[in-house]
């Protein structure tokens, strides 16, 4: 009786896992569909992938997306690492407010963050959307994630290691550079990967801050899929899933997610 119920529960869990992954699998399968209108399965082809690389709009959007992601990763990793480290060591008094400041951008509806930055730039600088605006927006929503991941590791650091560095005559910066940073490296790299995935994927916040000529890949896809489903879009989507998937996989291998606690901290602040 009891094992029957357990088996039923396990079967149910498997079904839910299939539910979570099946749509993505279907999307990938249809990127190999020979039918141009992508209605029915008419045969296997790899043709859609090479055509992507002769599509100037896609290549242009990919270029913008990668440049934004590079800037967002670099800046959010620098700001977030220091912030995470500081947060791990800050006194009681300021910890609460600072945690709130970190948590808020993670839970704010994307649309609210998008319009707030649009208003900010339009009012102060007459901005009508630009590459710079997108880059600043992406840095802003990536910083918290990096900081939370770095903090989780910084809390577990043995303070004696840094003290030893100091005792051996290293300067404050030297200790940071040669002791603290190598110890934090996995978390910093994982944070960078997460930032890359977030930036590479973002649609909503970007859509409010993009201008003429600063269209990203998700924006391009969004503008296309409103008019229907094409195998090219499936092929681009498959590439995006693969790229972000690899980034997340690396972040996971770096050990940040190895405890469920760490993951929850990253998610809920």
């Amino acid at each position, binding site marked *: 009786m009891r094992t029957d119920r357990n088996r039923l529960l*396990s079967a149910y869990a498997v079904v839910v896992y299939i539910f*979570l992954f099946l749509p993505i699998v279907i999307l990938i399968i249809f990127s190999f569909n020979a039918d141009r209108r992508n209605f029915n399965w008419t045969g296997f082809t790899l043709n859609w992938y090479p055509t992507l690389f002769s599509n100037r709009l896609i290549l242009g959007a990919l270029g913008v997306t990668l440049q934004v992601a590079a800037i967002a990763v670099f800046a959010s990793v620098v700001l977030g690492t220091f912030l995470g480290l500081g947060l791990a060591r800050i006194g009681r008094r300021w910890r609460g407010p600072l945690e709130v400041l970190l948590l808020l*951008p993670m839970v704010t509806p994307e649309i609210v963050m998008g319009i707030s930055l649009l208003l900010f730039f339009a009012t102060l600088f007459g901005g009508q959307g630009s590459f710079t605006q997108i880059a600043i927006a992406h840095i802003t929503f990536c910083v918290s994630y990096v900081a939370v991941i770095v903090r989780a590791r910084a809390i577990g650091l043995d303070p004696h290691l840094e003290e030893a560095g100091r005792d051996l005559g290293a300067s404050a910066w030297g200790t940071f550079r040669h002791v603290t940073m190598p110890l934090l490296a996995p978390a910093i790299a994982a944070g960078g990967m997460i930032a890359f995935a977030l930036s590479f994927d973002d649609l909503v916040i970007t859509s409010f801050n993009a201008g003429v000529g600063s269209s990203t890949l998700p924006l391009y896809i969004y503008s296309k899929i409103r008019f229907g489903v094409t195998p090219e879009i499936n092929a681009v989507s498959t590439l995006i899933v693969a790229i972000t998937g690899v980034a997340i996989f690396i972040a996971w291998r770096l050990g940040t997610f190895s405890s469920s606690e760490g993951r929850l901290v990253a998610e*809920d602040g």
Partner: protein
Amino acid sequence: MLGRRLGIGPLILPGAVWLALFFLVPLAFIAAVSFGTHDRFGRVLFDALTLDNYRRAFAPTFIPTISRSIYYAGMTTILSIAIGYPVAFWISRYGGRNKALLLILVMLPFWTSYLIRTYAWMIILRDNGVVNSILHGLGITGEPIILLNTDLAVILGMTYGFLPFAILPLFVSIDRLDEALVSAARDLYANGRSAFIHVILPLTMPGIIAASLLTFIPAIGDYVTPDLLGGAQTTTVAKVVQTLFLSGRDWPQGSALGFILMAVTIIGTFAAVRSLRAEVLS
């Protein structure tokens, strides 16, 4: 050590200033603009501060939009808890050494582009999509069933998108549950059902509350799903905000709605955090 030597300030300051400048200040802009008016070119005017934008947000014309948003988010929340609870329970009880891996597998789809996952549902649900092809192929239906651009499609897409947000807090709550209490209930002759209702369910209530809030909040702010799976006619608060900003050029009204969304989010998040934290401490 860098922190201890120089003080925490230099570590915290750059990031904190960045977030203050590009996150808090822009939020203040929303608040400010929501009390403004606009001219016929869409420029925001502040010469007469007004509460009209908030009044209009709760006026009869907006009520169908707001209630539809709440309906979508509410259904999504209920479905996510109902689908997610047994999964969280299963991971906690039978996950063994693989708990972390099983949780990551839950989160993995979440990390792939929300847009692309929603697009995948378009492929599945459209008139000549996967579901209809299968039904037709099996001879169950002659004409395709309309699935895309329906309420069902939106709720399905949102549930798919936000299920991980429900499973994680539920897992935390269930995983902390003391198995001895359940055994005690069994020793006192509770059957599986009443042990669940009288012991497991009340003890995991903080997790359920947190999961509800963490699902409801992103669902109510989502505009991609209603836009792509709900069709042009279905308006939600988030879609209205988008229209008011990008084509309607009524920024003050859009700001008021955005501010209301933000307020709901902040209140909900703190309630969720408090609920989970109380659990961890008890």
